[in-house]
């Protein structure tokens, strides 16, 4: 599907300027790019989190489209109900419009507390797109670890200390879990590769049924980097194969981006304050090495699934 940036940029954005997200926050960029891809009106839901609190402080709203926030763990269930209402009213001839339904959640609201709600909604087959903006921790409550947090990250609940090197576990692979739901479309994208992201969103909107999109969404505050580096940093993470860009369409895995050079994860880790402690001694080195090994192993798995070689 061709992405005509000129035409897209002329569209009125679903999320307007004036929202209160931090400078350098990737989440609003992701939201605007995803919603830009819809050629039908959209109804948007959001889990409690940064996206919701920065865009809908009563009596203001940054949303130019219908928007609902219900609670933290139920963005998927809430939008599934909206979609069910649409299906019912459409069948009864009480509504004419055709609408795309999109639920957003951060990684906390998606990988963790909203996981059951997401799994249920996807299994039931609602015609909706779920988008996770994955910034790798509970950023809204002040940078606590989630199951999406990378290994070794210093968060406020996995602080680096005398006997701690930060988060012990590697991150959960949510895109793979969603692919195992055998829904029509699952993809992983990044704020850095906007053409790829918009194409995936376009494809998702063109398919009837449940769709899931996992998008890398750097958080300048929680990761500790300069706000102007959001996109570059995400690009390095994609290139390092920590965050592969792929899609699974009707069970067929396809790599949508193959980096020309594959830098070590250390290259982007050293640019982020959350990994600073790993560069102070042997213990940190070992964590980086272990995380690198895991990245390489999972990259090999993705390549194999996609029928590719490096």
């Amino acid at each position, binding site marked *: 599907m061709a992405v005509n940036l000129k035409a897209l940029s002329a569209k009125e954005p679903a999320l307007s300027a004036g929202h209160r997200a931090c400078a350098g926050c990737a989440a609003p960029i992701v939201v605007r790019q995803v919603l830009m891809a819809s050629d039908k*009106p959209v*109804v948007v*839901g959001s889990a409690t989190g940064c996206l*919701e*609190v920065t865009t*809908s*402080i*009563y*009596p203001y*709203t940054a*949303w*130019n*489209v*219908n*928007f*609902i*926030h*219900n*609670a933290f*763990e*139920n963005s998927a*269930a*809430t*939008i*599934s*109900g*909206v*979609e*069910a*209402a*649409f*299906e*019912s*009213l459409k*069948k*009864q001839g009480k*509504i004419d*419009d055709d*609408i795309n339904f999109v639920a957003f959640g951060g990684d906390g609201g998606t990988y963790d507390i909203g996981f*059951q*709600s997401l*799994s*249920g*909604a996807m*299994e*039931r087959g609602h015609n909706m797109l779920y988008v996770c903006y994955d910034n790798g921790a509970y950023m809204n409550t002040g940078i606590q670890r989630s199951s999406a947090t990378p290994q070794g990250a210093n968060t406020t609940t996995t602080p680096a200390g005398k006997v701690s090197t930060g988060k012990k576990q590697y991150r959960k692979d949510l895109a793979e879990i969603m692919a195992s739901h055998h829904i029509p479309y699952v993809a992983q994208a990044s704020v850095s590769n906007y053409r790829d992201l918009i194409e995936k969103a376009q494809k998702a909107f063109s398919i009837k049924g449940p769709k899931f999109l996992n998008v890398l969404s750097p958080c300048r505050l929680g990761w500790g980097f300069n706000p102007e580096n959001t996109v570059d940093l995400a690009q390095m993470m994609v290139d390092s194969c920590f965050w592969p860009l792929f899609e699974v369409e009707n069970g067929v895995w396809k790599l949508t981006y193959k980096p020309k050079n594959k830098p070590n994860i250390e290259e982007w880790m050293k640019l982020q304050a959350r990994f600073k402690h790993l560069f102070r001694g042997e213990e940190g080195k070992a964590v980086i090495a272990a995380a690198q090994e895991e990245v390489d192993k999972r990259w090999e798995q993705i390549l194999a699934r996609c029928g590719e070689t490096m």
Partner: protein
Amino acid sequence: MKIRHSLTGNEAMAEAMRQINPDVVAAYPITPQTEIVQLFSNSVADGKVNTEFVTVESEHSAMSATIGASAAGARAMTATSANGLAYMWEVVYIAASMRLPIVMPVVNRALSGPINIHCDHSDTMGARDSGWIQIYSENSQEAYDNLIQAMRVAEHSEIQLPVMVCMDGFIISHGMEVIEMEDDDTVRKFIGEHKANYSLLDVKNPITMGPLDLQDFYFEHKKQQAEAMKNSAAVIRDVAKEWEKLTGRSYDMIEEYRMEDAEIAIVAIGSATGTAKVVIDGLREKGVKAGLVKIRVFRPFPKEEIAKALANTKAVAIMDRAESFADFGGPLFRDIRASLYDHDVRPKMVSYVYGLGGRDVMPEDIASVYADLERLVKGEQLPMLNHLGVRE
């Protein structure tokens, strides 16, 4: 046209739901509510309703999806019991705060733990401050009538509040009774078309629902919610009058049974009030001036009606089918004591917590309460807080 049917409470509720024909039902099974969901899904399977039936993976999602559907302008319902209600707790409050006219049958069951599937009111009593209107039923007939009336109350343009229609688990839900049903057309005309004030599907007039509401507006919104709850009493009465005109079956906030000259009275909720009526008839034959105040609507709380009904009594027993671990009786006891605080003449008032976890309350149990009240009238001292029918 009236139709007489032998139905259990669950069947009556499921039939009322079929007649209401909601646009969306999102529900999850839990004993003793399960049958409602099963029976309603038969109506869906046979194309008797236009409902989009969302078979969610939990009660939390049941209420979340119902909220989404209602916010999208659909007439949306769910149903639950006990732990299911507890599991959806967070979103139960949100439904009310978003002013969504959701109607939910709740089949009352003891809240765990220990786990128990039988009747008490610990589930819905815990939700009494959630901002939902609560209507309780004495039997299947009332469950049927209440559910249909609830639709009108919830969707009233000035009210826009969700309603729980409660009935006792097993005792009513699985007890067969002959009830009078109205025909489908009568019910559908009575409830009318649902016209939501706002809808997420109105793409030409976008709205933001569920925004972050901080120190500067939250309080005002809570006050509006409290006002709507206050105003709902008049609507509940009006809808009941209209239903009575149509069906001949009358309802009010409370029901007074032989209270005109009663000296001793019981106040209770749900199926136990039917048992109390039988006991009262027996006592009356012996010349005992016994009466009953049945609470039909618990939220909003009919404080004036109750105070008026009890004004001329000498001693009253308030029966709660829920323990609230306050060492001060159940929730109904405390609300009624508070209702009478400003009155010059106040009856003696004692609390009976009864029937927890489905413990049967037999006519002789109720009779023993009236006997206690007679002793109280005679000047005997009795403990204020009692547990009825419990082994010591």
